[in-house]
């Protein structure tokens, strides 16, 4: 069984990347692989903001889907400096089960994984 890590660099809803990361991570877990972590970098830090709320309630709530992954034991980590730049480095906005940690956390994900999948614009 393999070990996967994800690097997500785009905001939710504007791109399909967030959906792809969520679906791939869930599929990998279901297949018995390990997901070492999901690192939210640059605009990716908008994915674990707990005020995300689609105005169409039939639409998927991407933050909730990341919360579910975190509840399955997947580390979902956002870059604190990227969040600071964007005004979202605020523990009141931080999605339950996720946290802020610097690029050292990303390098640990890379070191601990067989593959890192990178999602950018």
């Amino acid at each position, binding site marked *: 069984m393999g070990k996967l890590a994800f690097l997500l660099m785009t905001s939710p809803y504007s*791109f*399909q990347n967030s*959906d792809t990361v969520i679906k791939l991570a869930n599929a990998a877990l279901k297949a018995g692989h390990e997901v070492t972590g999901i690192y939210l970098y640059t605009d990716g830090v908008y994915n674990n903001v707990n005020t995300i709320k689609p105005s169409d309630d039939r*639409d998927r709530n991407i933050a909730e889907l990341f919360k579910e992954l975190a509840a399955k034991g997947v580390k979902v980590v956002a870059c604190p400096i990227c969040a600071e730049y964007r005004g979202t480095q605020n523990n009141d906005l931080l999605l339950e089960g996720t946290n802020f940690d610097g690029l050292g956390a990303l390098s640990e994900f890379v070191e601990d994984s067989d593959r890192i999948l990178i999602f950018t614009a």
Partner: protein
Amino acid sequence: MEKVIVIFRKGPYGQINSLEGIRVAQGLLVLDVETDAIFIDDGVFNLIKNQKPDGIGHHSVIGALESMHRYDIPIFACESSLKQRGIKPEDLDSGLEVKIISIQELSDLLLLADATIAL
């Protein structure tokens, strides 16, 4: 503002541009602005029939385009963009009543518009 053209340049999924273009067009309708929708480059992929995006958790762009078209927004597609991508007229969703136009006709349309919004 009398006439606005919304230009769709990206494919239907992968990024939000198409759905937002449709929202912009609907907003213009509310303001009673005459609006055309032009599909060029990868934008022509929006018009292909039988799209089934449920599996990726996205709204159907075709459904949204059909509802936009029902409110009298004409839909134009660039002939050369279709040809470059091997898309034939019969591949397009018939409910959209797509008018296929040449680059020359497209330029004429653009020159008549007071504003264009390209997404």
